[in-house]
């Protein structure tokens, strides 16, 4: 199979074991040129491990990753040239000034002097670091350090940007600014960013990869995911009433696709499947009361995806 020239980030069956502990297992995905993709998952789900394998910091136990067509292990230097990387803890030499730091980062990426000084001006403007250009990094606030981190990542105009939790631990105003910056960068970069904040991906990303316990569990657009999560697809109801009549009545509720019954006698548990957009819980309640049956339990059955989402922070508090 020929490598798709438009595929900028390719992960094929990536697996990483730390001893016996599974870090990431069998993760495959492809990110095409110009896409902004979010890697979403709870803390400890394997986001950082995945990113470290993609950037070549850590080799996978098995599997292959390619950046801009370069194998990260076999063609490591070319792959690394194509990447701008912002690790989770922003890697800064605190005893350097912003300008010296950017100069150093540019020089080890082989940028020539004229181009580098022009680029430093550009990224300083883009990340709004102008007033702190000559400041020692040690004196900068967390938000500004994050910007310096982003500035070094985009300095060499990499084809691919990989950012690990770019908005973690900075104040809300700076979070908004950082997201805006990432959106701007998304116009001419291929971006993979990780986060555990659900609203963040819907704001920035065109596509979401959900990772849980080291495995990729879903891949979709933020809108589709939100839709899939709006209602669960199955309700479990424990009803006291004549079995056959209850079954018939449940089936007649609009949107219900299937009903199964477990348990014998007067009290039984009914699993009611329905179309994603038609939550029948209220209708079931009315039905039971109207027929003078007894509703003993009614709860939506959690699907695995939703469970994962429950662990994700749904609010901005992060």
């Amino acid at each position: 199979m020929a490598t798709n020239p438009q595929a900028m980030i390719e992960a094929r069956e990536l697996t990483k074991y730390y001893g016996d502990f599974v870090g990431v297992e069998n993760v495959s995905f492809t990110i095409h040129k110009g896409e902004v993709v979010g890697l979403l998952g709870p803390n400890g789900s394997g986001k950082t491990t995945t990113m470290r394998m993609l950037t070549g910091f850590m080799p996978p136990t098995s599997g292959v990753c390619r950046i801009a067509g370069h194998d990260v292990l076999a063609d490591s230097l070319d792959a690394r040239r194509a990447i701008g990387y912002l690790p989770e803890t922003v890697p800064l030499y605190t005893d350097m000034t912003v300008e010296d730091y950017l100069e150093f980062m540019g020089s080890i990426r082989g940028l020539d002097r004229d181009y580098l000084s022009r680029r430093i001006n550009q990224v300083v403007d883009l990340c709004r670091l102008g007033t702190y250009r000559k400041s020692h990094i040690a004196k900068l606030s967390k938000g500004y350090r994050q910007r310096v981190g982003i500035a070094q990542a985009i300095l060499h105009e990499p084809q691919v940007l990989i950012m690990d939790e770019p908005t973690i631990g900075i104040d809300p105003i700076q979070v908004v600014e950082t997201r805006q910056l990432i959106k701007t960068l998304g116009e001419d970069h291929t971006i993979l960013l990780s986060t555990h904040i659900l609203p963040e991906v819907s704001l920035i990303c065109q596509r979401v990869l959900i990772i849980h316990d080291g495995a990729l569990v879903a891949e979709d657009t933020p809108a589709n995911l939100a839709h899939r999560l709006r209602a669960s697809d199955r309700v479990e109801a424990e009803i006291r009433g004549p079995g056959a009549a209850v079954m018939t009545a449940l089936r007649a509720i609009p949107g219900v696709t299937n009903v199964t019954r477990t348990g014998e006698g007067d009290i039984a548990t009914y699993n009611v499947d329905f179309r994603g957009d038609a939550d029948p819980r209220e209708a079931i309640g009315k039905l039971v009361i109207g027929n003078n049956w007894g509703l003993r339990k009614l709860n939506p059955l959690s699907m695995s995806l939703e469970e994962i989402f429950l662990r994700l922070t749904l609010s901005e508090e992060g």
Partner: protein
Amino acid sequence: MFHNILAISWKETKVYFSTPAAYIIATVFLALTGYFFVQSISVALPEASLRQWAIASTAVFTLWAPVLTMRLLAEEQKLGTLELLMTSPVRDTEIVLGKYLATLIVLVSTLMITLFYVILLNWFGDPDMGPMFVGYLGLLLFGAATLSIGLFASSLSPNQIVSAVIGFGVLLMLTLIGQAAPLTEGVTAQVLSQISITNHFQDFARGIIDTHSVVYFVVLTVLMLFLTSRNLESRRWR
């Protein structure tokens, strides 16, 4: 290849010369060795040579080198910048050589200040310049080897103090192991005295260039740099 090494060593050299640490370390070195210099010429019949001074300097190096190098890779690990370096288009060897080159620059700069003693000796006496030159060559080789050991120690831990202690421990062992040689016999004695870093310096102090001592220092340095580089590489596999 050279471009990256120079970029890294330029950065490290700038850090050395823009923070107090290197100056303090150099001052301590000069103060201690200066004392030995004064002592060596303050005897009844002073000799216009740097022999005593050079031997004393090697002892100071064993303390000096681990302190000078402890920051280099330990700090990268602590700050997380190693992740950035190792994902930049730079080879592990280039990282190691770049850092090492910066320490050599500090070493040479410090040794250049001590040329003051040579001037003094020439002013007040008539020293034999040949052995003095050989002494400096020895100090350079000795210093280079101790720095490579310090750098290796720095790659072993994210904690600078731990790195310094490891480096000092290794150097102390290489220094003292020669004293164990007379206690043993035959091959063991031979091996122990050949491993000793101080024994190899004796000839240089006397003004003799012994090729096998030169080889000893060069091999030790290259081995340490190689191990440092391999140790960095192995971090990728953990």
